[in-house]
């Protein structure tokens, strides 16, 4: 790999990292897991003057629950940590299912959740789960800390709302009110492939009634597609064949796919609708068994 020349820092504290970013006025880039940045450097799609490697920052490799059930994912929590997490399966099924579908096992050992969200790749899986779950990003900069709602965080393909001198230190995902249900399905051509289409679904349920319904998609638009509004047709309803069909239809309509060599747009829409149906049908049958 022969990237353009760059300077390299590996600060030991967050304050120092922020100071370096601040001093370099937009010419420096944060390196987390490197699984998106390094390929871009290699292809010379990115040629920052300075790399600020945050891997030596202490205390950022966690994911944990607050007493109220809120999930906090630190900037150095790897995909793999989430894949093998014991916290996620019950409380955050959407994340638990997505974790095993990110890239391949090798990449999962290094890539980070927060880095993936920052990268704002329209095909990135975590951003879709964050939108469906109504998460937010905690940013630290010279002026201190601020929180950015996920729906405001991704500004477009590969652009996020962070200022050049800010670091995303944590992702915060609120706990479900009631029972957490959800799922993640992805169509890929092989392990490690980005999504041709993928769908995140996250429901809060009270008994068999849906109280909050979130959905988002990757791979079917120029950016992560927020389908929360489409999904809201489910709120106040139970999961029946009819309500599921209505939700699938609404979410598919929110998709904005392009025809390319992975399939035409009708096919991709059809996949979205199929995936929504499958996730919801599975939830419905789980509910039935529980009842």
């Amino acid at each position, binding site marked *: 790999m022969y990237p353009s*020349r760059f300077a390299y820092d590996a600060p030991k504290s967050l304050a120092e990292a922020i100071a370096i970013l601040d001093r370099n006025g937009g010419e420096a880039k944060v390196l987390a897991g490197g699984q998106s940045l390094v390929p871009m450097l290699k292809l*010379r799609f990115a040629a920052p003057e300075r790399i600020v490697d945050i891997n030596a920052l202490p205390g950022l490799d966690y994911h944990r629950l607050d007493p109220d059930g809120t999930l906090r994912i630190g900037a150095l929590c790897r995909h793999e940590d989430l894949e093998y997490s014991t916290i996620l399966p019950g409380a955050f099924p959407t994340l638990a299912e997505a974790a095993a579908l990110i890239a391949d096992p090798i990449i999962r050992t290094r890539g980070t959740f927060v880095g993936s969200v920052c990268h704002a790749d329209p095909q990135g899986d975590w951003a879709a789960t964050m939108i469906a779950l109504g998460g937010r990003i905690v940013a630290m900069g010279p002026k201190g800390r601020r929180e950015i709602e996920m729906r405001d965080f991704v500004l477009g393909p590969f652009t996020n709302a962070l200022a050049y001198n800010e670091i995303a230190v944590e992702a915060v995902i609120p706990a479900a009110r009631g029972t957490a249900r959800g799922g993640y399905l992805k*169509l890929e*051509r*092989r392990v*490690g492939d980005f999504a041709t289409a993928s769908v995140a679904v996250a429901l809060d349920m009270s008994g068999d009634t849906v109280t909050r319904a979130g959905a988002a998609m990757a791979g079917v638009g120029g950016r992560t597609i927020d389908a929360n509004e489409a999904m809201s047709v489910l709120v106040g309803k139970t999961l029946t064949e009819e309500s599921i069909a209505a939700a699938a239809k609404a979410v598919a309509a929110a998709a904005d796919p392009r025809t*390319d060599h992975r399939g035409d747009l009708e096919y991709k829409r059809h996949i979205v609708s*199929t995936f929504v149906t499958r996730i919801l049908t599975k939830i419905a049958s789980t509910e039935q068994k529980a009842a």
Partner: protein
Amino acid sequence: MALDELKIGGMGASRRRVEDNRFIRGKGRYVDDVVLPGMLHMEILRSPVAHARIKSIDTSAAWEVPGVRLVLTGETMAARNLAWMPTLSYDTQAVLATDKVRFQGQEVAAVIADDPYVAKDACSKIVVEYEQLPVIVNPIQAQDPASPLIRDDKANQTSNKVFDWEIGDQAATDAAFAQADVISEVDLHYPRSHPSPLEPCGSIADYDRSTGKLTVYMTTQAPHIVRAAVAMVAELPEQMIRIISPDLGGGFGNKVPIYPGYVISILASILTERPVKWIEDRTGNLISTGFGRDVYLKGQLALRKDGRILGMRMHTVSDHGAFYADAQPTKFKIGLMHSTFACYDIPAAHLVSEGWYTNKAPGGVAYRCSFRVTEAMFFQERMIQNAAYDLGMDQAEFRRINLVKDDMFPYRTAFGFLTDSGQYQKCLDLGLEAIGYSTFKQEQEEARKRGKLLGIGISTMTEPLGAGNSREYDIIGIKMFDSAELRVHMTGKAILRTGAKTQGQGHETTWAQIVAHELGIPAEDITVEEGDTDTAPFGMGTYASRSTPVAGAAVAMVSRKIRAKARKIAAHLLEVSEEDIEWELGRFYVRGNNERGVTIQDCALAAYSNVPDGLEPGLENNAYYDPPNLTWPFAAYICKVEVDPETGVWDVLKFVAVDDCGVRINPMIVEGQIMGGLTEAYAMASMQYITFDEEGNCIGANFMDYLLPTAWETPGYELYEVVTPCPHHPIGAKGIGECATVGGPAAFVNAVVDALQHTGVRNIDMPMMPNRVYQALTTGKNVSGMPPVLAG
């Protein structure tokens, strides 16, 4: 008292691969691991567009970059008559473009600098002004008389046609079709794929002006051919050229051609008088080096109601890219395409082939196949399956009726090949039994109730492996035989060298096993060395599954020469006449008195210390082997898939492979070759192609777009063996390196098409991505994968 052959690692021993000792420790020595004192680094600037006239090239800013030693363009090459070079198919190929660029990724300029970073920086400073021309990305466009002429550099070229070629008996075939009850037709495209060795191509040229010697470390499967070509092209004396092909990280045919990068690095070293290293990056490898396939087929079978095939017609249209650079025997324009249907008894056949230039990378290398045999067998098996459907006949039964029977050998095919051995029926039956063919219909019904579609695909084929013989096979005039040289040292240890070149096949292990089998010297006492033209005997290299059929035979023959000499020494040591000496593995003894004997090691010592009068000292020899015929392994691959009709996603439920490659030297290595080959077949069937958009942009220029399967999705394979020894090979072996890549794809495609058969679908072009399968299912129509495709 003969040795136990398995214990000394002889024939049939699943001996661990000795080369893996260094590979798994990261101690392999690939071209990029070689560092020479004072070495410079070269980077190639490639064309971003597929077809354009070069209006100007400004290299001044590149020269300014500190650390830059040399910048080369087509003009500098032309001044030394090196702007163009000959290809292996008697065409010419641009080394660095002078007039036009003819495909995206074509070499336009090169920078030689102190380090590879600087070379790359400086490349981006070269300004090239292009005037874009209309682009042709498939032969259908190329056939249009109004299409732009790609090869306007060639004096007599008035269209984009490369060649017309035909073989077979047209009149007899027409007559067969006139008698047919049913005519079955297929139209399909075998897409362009890329061998993608994990190590891309590269070279280090080291010209020493004081001695006049040119040493080139090079990623090549055929170092001796390269030496000859360099001697001819660069007009250097052949003895002053040394090509060293060190460890290779795979080849698969990709490392047979001679690439511009090699030639440029050689000139750069001559000009700078420093070693010059060029290591291609992944994208460079994918977009500019030898691809495989890219052939269209119109196939027809003339059928009788009772299931007999009366005749076969094939019309192939092949896409060769901008330069006709296929690596293939000179006599044949489309490789051994005419080996198609060799395992079936067909009275009449006719093949017409046309080749076309397009604005795509040149190549047409034998990607893990014996010169277009992959296409030949894929077409054959797709045609066979559809013929069975068109007759309304069971696909296994249809094959059974038409396969060549055991008592028909030697069998002359309609195109003139002579197949010599096999038990086709037995292999097929074994495979059908293993896959559970007799209960499949029931299984299919049950799956339908679950909303899934099941299909079974069969692929049976024999293929011609191991070119030569030299009567018919040559490359640029050099005859296709091979060689081995064996030196047995005083202590009974030995070194063996051959003209082949291992790239993962395990020659260092298996060649020693052949020597062990012939001489009883334990395999671990034999070092195997290949790839250095200063030390290895002349040979044509490794591709087309030719190593074991040709070089491996030479290893057996040279061992026998050594044994013949050792016998004379044994007679001397045992003080009897040579006629009274008997051989058993590892030793000679006196006939009638097994106790009185000497080992091969005793003879080796005597060869250097106690030579009988009149005998030359030493125990070494070489052998050149010109095979009397190709070898003809047979395979029956059977695949069972489940298709999800809602998404078009398909999964392999079971895959059975029955291979008959004659005698197996190292069964473990044979099985590894089969599993690897099936995985490549799966890749082509499911996910992999190098395709292009309307503008000639390559889609598949990196491993995110050109997909290699991982252990994750690769199906498991159940392997079975049948052994029919090759009648003419000294140890009865046949080629196996490529069978699975060749025969595998049709098994997967036939299985998916079988699952969709009820909809009327007869073909889905590879790769059978879910969207294509879904499209076929929902429309009931065939799906064509011809480029251009939409980028994205």
